[in-house]
C-alpha cells in the first residue's frame, strides 16, 4: 500500500521535533509530502529529509493533490479556521493539534463540518491515545469503587532538552528562560495566560479526565504559578480535581503524572517526557491493603498511536467519534473559561483589579 500523503501546516518545534520524527516511525503508512510555514522559511528544513514540497501560507498545500491528510500544527488561534479550510479543499482526513478550537462556537462549527463532509478527524491529545491510559481506564471501569479524586501534575524543564534528542532542526522559539515572564500583577494577563495554558498544556489530559468525570461543575480556585503555570481546583461529576502545571527554566526531568483515587485504589499514570519516544506511560495501582502493582510500559506511545488512528481512518474506514471530539473540546473550553474567571474573581477579592 502506498503511504498516505501528509501535508503539515506549521513548522514550529511541535513539527520539527515531534510530528516529523513520529511520522518517520510510520513510514509505511504515512509520509510527509508538503510542509507549509507562515513565512519563517523553516518549512524547507523539515520538508527536505523526506523530499517533500514546502510553501508559505496554506493555499499551495491545500491545493496539492498529493496531500490526503492535512496536519494542522499552527498556533491554536488558527486551528479551527485551517481545519475548515482543509474540509473546504476536499481533504479526506485532518489531524489537528490540540486544542481543536478556542471557543465553543468554533468547536461546533469544525465538528459539524467534519460530520457533514465525512472528513476523518483526529485531535492530537496524545495522552488519551497512550495505551497506558486504556489500561488505567479499564482498571477504573472494571473495578469496584467510583473515582473520587483526580490530579494531573505537570512540571516541565525547557523543551529544548528533548528537542535535541529527536531533531537537528533549530527550534522556532526561544526556550522559556529567554521569554519575558507574564505580568502576573495584571489580573487580565494572568487570566488569559491561565486560559491559554489550560488549552495548550492541560488539554493533554482533559479528554482522559472527561472519561471518568464527564460533567463539569465548577472551578473552586485557580491561580497562576511563577515562573509560568497554573494551580486549579475544580469539581466535575462529583470528582474533586486538582490541575497543576509549571514550566521551569531549568531543573529535573519532566514530571507528568495523573493520580486517580477511587474508594479503594490509587492509580498513577506517569507519562515519559514530551517529544521523545520512550514508550507508553507506566501505570501503578495501589490497593486498599497497600499492595502495589506496576504495569509495564509498552513500546508504542500516544504520539505514534494518534497518527496510527489517522492511517486507520483512511485505510480501514475507522469511524471518527465526532460527538466525543466535540464534547472533549467543549469540556476543555468550559474549564479554561471558568479558570480564567476564577483568576479574575480572586484578583477582584484582593482588590487588585
Amino acid at each position: 500500500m502506498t503511504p498516505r500523503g501528509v501535508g503539515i501546516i506549521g513548522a514550529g518545534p511541535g513539527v520539527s521535533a515531534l510530528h516529523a520524527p513520529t511520522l518517520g516511525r510510520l513510514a509505511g503508512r504515512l509520509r510527509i509530502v508538503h510542509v507549509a510555514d507562515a513565512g519563517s522559511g523553516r518549512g524547507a528544513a523539515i520538508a527536505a529529509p523526506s523530499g517533500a514540497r514546502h510553501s508559505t501560507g496554506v493555499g499551495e498545500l491545500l491545493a496539492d493533490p498529493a496531500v490526503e491528510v492535512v496536519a494542522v500544527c499552527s498556533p491554536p488561534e488558527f486551528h479551527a479556521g485551517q481545519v475548515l479550510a482543509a474540509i473546504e479543499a476536499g481533504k479526506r482526513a485532518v489531524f489537528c493539534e490540540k486544542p481543536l478550537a478556542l471557543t465553543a462556537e468554533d468547536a461546533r462549527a469544525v465538528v459539524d463540518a467534519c460530520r457533514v463532509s465525512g472528513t476523518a478527524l483526529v485531535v492530537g491529545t496524545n495522552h488519551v491515545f497512550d495505551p497506558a491510559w486504556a489500561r488505567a481506564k479499564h482498571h477504573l471501569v472494571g473495578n469496584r469503587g467510583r473515582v473520587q479524586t483526580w490530579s494531573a501534575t505537570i512540571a516541565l524543564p525547557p523543551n529544548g532538552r528533548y528537542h535535541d534528542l529527536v531533531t537537528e532542526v533549530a527550534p522556532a522559539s526561544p526556550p522559556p528562560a529567554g521569554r519575558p515572564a507574564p505580568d502576573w500583577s495584571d489580573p487580565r494577563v494572568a487570566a488569559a495566560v491561565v486560559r491559554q495554558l489550560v488549552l495548550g498544556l492541560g488539554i493533554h489530559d482533559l479528554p482522559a479526565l472527561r472519561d471518568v468525570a464527564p460533567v463539569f461543575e465548577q472551578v473552586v480556585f485557580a491561580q497562576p504559578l511563577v515562573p509560568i503555570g497554573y494551580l486549579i481546583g475544580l469539581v466535575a461529576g462529583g470528582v474533586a480535581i486538582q490541575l497543576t502545571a509549571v514550566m521551569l527554566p531549568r531543573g529535573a526531568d519532566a514530571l507528568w503524572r495523573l493520580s486517580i483515587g477511587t474508594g479503594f485504589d490509587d492509580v498513577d499514570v506517569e507519562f515519559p517526557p514530551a517529544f521523545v519516544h520512550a514508550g507508553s506511560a507506566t501505570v501503578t495501582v495501589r490497593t486498599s491493603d497497600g499492595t502495589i502493582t506496576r504495569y509495564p510500559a509498552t513500546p508504542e506511545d500516544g504520539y505514534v498511536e494518534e497518527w496510527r488512528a489517522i492511517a486507520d481512518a483512511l485505510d480501514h474506514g475507522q469511524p471518527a467519534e465526532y460527538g466525543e471530539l466535540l464534547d472533549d473540546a467543549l469540556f476543555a473550553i468550559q474549564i479554561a473559561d471558568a479558570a480564567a474567571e476564577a483568576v479574575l474573581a480572586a484578583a477582584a477579592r484582593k482588590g487588585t483589579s
Partner: protein
Amino acid sequence: MIGVRAPLASYRVAITELPERARSANDPRGSIVVVGGGTGWFARAVSAVEAGAAGLVVADPAVEVSGISGFAESDLRGVPVALDRELLRPDVAAEISREQPASVLTATCAAPAAAFDRTICDAVGWLRVLAGGPLQVTALQAGDGGLIMAVEGRGCPGGVLARVLVEPTAVPRLRVSAIGAVRSEVSAAAAAATVVRMDDERGTLIAPARFETRQRLALRRAIAAVTNGTMLDDLHEFAIDAEIALAGRRALSP
C-alpha cells in the same frame, strides 16, 4: 536513665531498645508518660502532668474539635511533649531541604474514615514542612467522597486532595511534593517506610530509609528534651495542622 510509663506494648518494646536511657516505670512522677492518642488524649496528657510526669509522648494523636480548641499549652506546665504522628516522622522532616524555592506545593492523601482526620493532618504537616511555615486555607470544596483545598504557605501556593477509603482496614497513605527546579516528594503509608525523593538536573536522590521505629524515635526525642531541658514544637505544629484538617473534615461531612 529515666523511667517511662508506657501502657502501649509498642512503647514497651521501644524502652527495651533504649537500655541505657530508659527503664520501665509505673509511677508517673519524674517519668515520661506515654499517652494513647484516642479521643480525649489532651485531657489525659494534662492529667499525666498533674500526676508529675516530666515528659510526654502522645501516640497517634486524634484530631479532635474539643482537643484543638482546648489546647492550652500552659496546662502542660512546660513539660515537653513528643507527638508520634503515624505518617509524619520528625527525623525525616528535619532533613527536608528548603534551599530551593518551590513554585507550588501539592498533596494527595487517602484514608478510611476513622483515620481520615489524622491522615490529612499529617499531609498538611508535610506541606508545612516543605513550605517552611504554617499554611492558610484559601479555598475548599468537597466532591463525592473527595476534597479539594487550596492553601498557601510563606507565599507559596499549594493544593490538597483528600478522600475517604471505603474499607475500614485500608492503609492510610499520603504523597506531598514541592515542585520547583528541585522537586521534593514525600510518600508515606501506614506500616511502610517513608520515602523522600529529590529530583534535579543531575538525577534522583532517594533519602536513606529510616529503620528506627517511630515509637523509639518519639521516646528518644522526649528523653532528649527532658534531659536537656528543652521544649518541642510538636504540639504547636499539630494544632496548626489540625485546624486545617478539621476544616477539611467539616467540608466533607458538614
